[in-house]
Structure formats: structure tokens, C-alpha cells
């Protein structure tokens, strides 16, 4: 359970030859090795079906839920392999939060209980503790001012953008070390998208963020590092400005020029 940092504090997560196989035949992700730096935003880009979402989901063992998916290789969090058989995925997922494409508030729970859900799971019931955490998480997710007067109304009553920030607040409430975001703005309008992007800039001060996006401008706007995936392989990983302005790989260049979509 100890999260003593033994390795270079710069690197929060790191994968070593990570491969995801479906039905023992189809390789969704092929031997990807890359670091994710502490308090930085790392973006995954690539055409749809390139394995970027599959790779992201392997970072907090979401593939455990699909019997047909198999993961090989290592994914290190603070130097510890999260796929080590002694590691419990339930514990890992608390350290690595996740935000999905569609906002996923629990519709029957109140806004308050949505944010507190992760804490209530581990049996924290004290009202003052919960109150504090809920307020902090909602503030961090830039949602507090909009909902502070109606914390008891159901999570489903918010607008799409608010729902997505609620989902982020819920992930933040358990104080994760890393947050994985799977195209968090793909179902939102431009205004909400801008808000979420600003939020990401704020959040990276506390957590490490990994974001999948199909929007290259978004990757440029929010990320410090960018990884380009193509048919399951990691083609190029560089600081964002380098990757977009001066890519080393031919395929990256072609993709950025819109050769394949």
C-alpha cells in the first residue's frame, strides 16, 4: 500500500511494452513504452481506432472488466507495476481516476452524493469531513459557484458541461495521483469545452493528467507532451511543441497534414 517514491519523481507513470490483445488475436495496443510526467498533461492523439483509448483504459485496469481482453507488459505507477498479481485493481483505481467521453453522473444521486460517492464507498460518513471534501472538489472542478445552492438536487439535472465537471469533481474527491480523461469534451459545446480546458490547466498543479483527444488543436492547447498513435503503435512521443512543429516521424507529419483521418 505504500506509495513511497523510489524512482525519478519526474515520472509519475510509465508503461513498458504494454500490449492489449482482444480475443487472443486482435492487438489493440502493441508494445507501447512511454512515460507520463508528474504534474504535466500528456495528450494521446491519432485517428479513430488507433488504440489511444484502449491504451488509456489499460492504465487503470479497466480491461479487467472485459473477459476477452488480455494485457501484457508493465504499467508502473510510482515504480510499482499495477498489473502485478499482488496489486488490487480496486486500490489502483482510487489512485488513478478516470473521466469518460460522456458525462457520467449517477443520475439518482444528488450533486453532493455524486462527489462524495468515492469517499462513502470506503465508509467515510462524517458530515464535516465530507462537506469539506465536496466543497474542495467542486471548487477545484470550477463548479462550486454554480451548484452551491442546490447540492441536494439530482446530478442528472445539470447541463452537459456541468455534468462533466461534476464527473471531474467526483474523480478529484478521492485525491487521485493521476487522472485519465477519455475525450472529455467530445460531447460538449464550445463554451463548456473551453471551461474544461482551462480547468485542466489548473488541475495539473495537483495531479498528473493524461488526456485522449481527437482534436489536435485541443492537444496543442492543453498538453505538455503528446503521443501520436497509429494502428495500435506509439509512433512518436515528444513535448507537444516539438511534435506539432517539428515531428521526426514521417507518419506523424502525414497525419498532421491531414493525410489520413
Amino acid at each position: 500500500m505504500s506509495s513511497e517514491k523510489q524512482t525519478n519523481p519526474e515520472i509519475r507513470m510509465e508503461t513498458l511494452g504494454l500490449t492489449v490483445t482482444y480475443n487472443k488475436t486482435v492487438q489493440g495496443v502493441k508494445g507501447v513504452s512511454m512515460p507520463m510526467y508528474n504534474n504535466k498533461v500528456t495528450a494521446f492523439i491519432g485517428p479513430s481506432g488507433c488504440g489511444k483509448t484502449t491504451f488509456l483504459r489499460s492504465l487503470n485496469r479497466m480491461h479487467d472488466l472485459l473477459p476477452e481482453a488480455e494485457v501484457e507488459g508493465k504499467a508502473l505507477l510510482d515504480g510499482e507495476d499495477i498489473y502485478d498479481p499482488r496489486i488490487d485493481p480496486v486500490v489502483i483505481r482510487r489512485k488513478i481516476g478516470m473521466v469518460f467521453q460522456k458525462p457520467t453522473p449517477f443520475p439518482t444521486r444528488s450533486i453532493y452524493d455524486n462527489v462524495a460517492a468515492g469517499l462513502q464507498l470506503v465508509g467515510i460518513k462524517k458530515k464535516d469531513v465530507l462537506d469539506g471534501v465536496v466543497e474542495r472538489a467542486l471548487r477545484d472542478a470550477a463548479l462550486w459557484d454554480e451548484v452551491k445552492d442546490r447540492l441536494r438536487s439530482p446530478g442528472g439535472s445539470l447541463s452537459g458541461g456541468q455534468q462533466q465537471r461534476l464527473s471531474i469533481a467526483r474523480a478529484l474527491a478521492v485525491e487521485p495521483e493521476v487522472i485519465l480523461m477519455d475525450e472529455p469534451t467530445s460531447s460538449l459545446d464550445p463554451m463548456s469545452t473551453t471551461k474544461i480546458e482551462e480547468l485542466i490547466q489548473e488541475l495539473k498543479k495537483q495531479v498528473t493528467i493524461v488526456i485522449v483527444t481527437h482534436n489536435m488543436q485541443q492537444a496543442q492547447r492543453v498538453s505538455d507532451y503528446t503521443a501520436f498513435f497509429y494502428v495500435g503503435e506509439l509512433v512518436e512521443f515528444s513535448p507537444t511543441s516539438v511534435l506539432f512543429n517539428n515531428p521526426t516521424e514521417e507518419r506523424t507529419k502525414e497525419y498532421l497534414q491531414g493525410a489520413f483521418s
Partner: protein
Amino acid sequence: MADIPVTLSRAQQITPARYRAPGDLVFKIIILVLSSVVIALAFAMAIILWYEARPTFQAFGFLSFLTETTWDPVAAVHGTWPFIMGTLITSFGALLLSLLPALGVAIFVSEYAPKWVANIINYTVDLLAAIPSVVVGLWGVFIFAPFMRDTFYMPIYLWAVENAPWLEPILGAPSSYNLATATIILALMIVPYTVALSRDAIRLVPREQKEAAWALGATRWEVMRVAVLPYARSGIVAGVLLSLARALGETMAVAMLIGNRNRMPFSLFGPAATMPSVIINEFREAVETLHYTSLMAVGFYLFILTIGINLIASYVQRKLTQQRKSP
């Protein structure tokens, strides 16, 4: 079921009278006439039952027949209250007994079991719904009822006589066929419906909801508790109400096992009667007009009760699904 709107809109696109062949009209009229007979049938049911029951309503009054507690064909006094009570007690009792097991099965097959196990259980439960009521009744009469009486009711009753005399009037002296047995068998017979409907409700829970819970570090049961069950709640409630409507009308097994006693108060281990059971047991011997019309009147109330529960169920279903979609 979910694709109704698609069908509608597409059909409306292709309907316009571009293909107005004479054959179309003839065919449409045939279909229309035949299907309106079915519509008429539903209306006829209400009218016929009411018409046949009219002398009873005239003799006793519509409401006093409802609340009258005596049912004595010989004295020509008829009241339907005991049967309504019997029906409600057995149905709600069966619902309570079956709810938890049904939910357990529905959760197990849709979220826990590997696919092949789930398939076997689904087949088995659906098959349970297909077994004719009389066959269940036959098994109940020869095997289940004697077993329950000797193993449970007798010892419990004897214990109560010695140690808790205040329980005696609630329990009643165990008879061969009784309220408790009929309720348990009824629970067994409605379980497949509750399972099928809650299974459907649980299946409609979006994968994202479950994954959101997993991503918070929930254990498997916690995913059920936090994401799956709350989301499926409305569907489950509607399913339970529909199962209740089934229970109200279940006839043969109950008629065979409930012991048929027309007089209140009912006790748990003593005989009782329900609306369908009194119809089945007395209809063939109902020679006096008033007896016959009173049985029809019982049928009329059963009709109203069933319609009522069905309406509430579909209302709940519609209302709760709308709530889900609106935000």
C-alpha cells in the same frame, strides 16, 4: 421495444398515398375489421361482466357488495370483501417473498454469471413461467403442502400454543391447504416475471455508469449498489407492479392450495379464498341466479383491479423513463 420511434418515422415517410392500388384498400379493410374485433373484445369484456353482474349490484348496491363480508349462497347474501382481502394478501405476500430472490437472479445473470451459466439460468426461469398452473398445483397438493404442514406449520403452531398464545389467532390451526402455502406457491409462479422484467431493467444500465463506479475504485457489489441498482430502480418498480397484476389473476394453483374458506378472518395456516379461486370453485355449482351474478360481479372487480394495477405500472414506467431522458 425500443425501436418504436424509428419505425414510426420511417413508416410515415413511405406512407403517402403514392401507391394507391385498389388491393391496398381491400387489404387494409380486412385487417382493420379483424383487428377491431380484438379491440371490441376488450370493451366487450367490461360490458359483459358488468351486464351479467347487474342483478347483484341491484340487489346489494355497487359499493356495499364490495364491502360486505358475508358470502353465503344458501342465505342469498353475497359480499366480495373476503375475496378481495384474500387476493390482496396472497398477491402482496407473494410479491414480498419473490422480490429478493427475483432481484438476486436478475443481478446474478446480468452482472455476475459467465455467459453460459446465465443462459442456462435464463432458460430455466423462463421455463418455470411456462409450466401450466395446474401442474404446479398438482405438485403442491401432493408434495409441497403436506411437506410444509408437517415440517413447518405444525411445529411452529405447537410452539406458539405453548409459548406465545398471542400468536395463535394470527397463525391459526394448520390445515392441509392454507393461505401460507398458496402464497409461497404464488411467489414461485410470479418469480419468472419479476426476474424477466428486472433483468431487462438492469440490462438498460449504460456501460458508462458501471465503468464510472469501477473507476472510483468500487468493488463488484459496490458497483451494483452505487451505479446499477439506482439506475434500474424505475424499471424494477414497474416490473414488480406488472408481476403483481399477474399474481392477482393466478387461478388454478391457488384454487387448489388455498383451502377455500369464504369467511373472514383469515389466518396464516388456515384456509382462505381469493377472487379467482371462488369463481373456479363455485361457478359450476352456481344454480341460483343471484349466486351466478355475484360470481360475475367478483369477476368484474377482478377486471377492474387488474386494469388498475396495469395502468399504474405503465404510468410508473413511462414517468420514470421520461425523467431519465429529460436532463
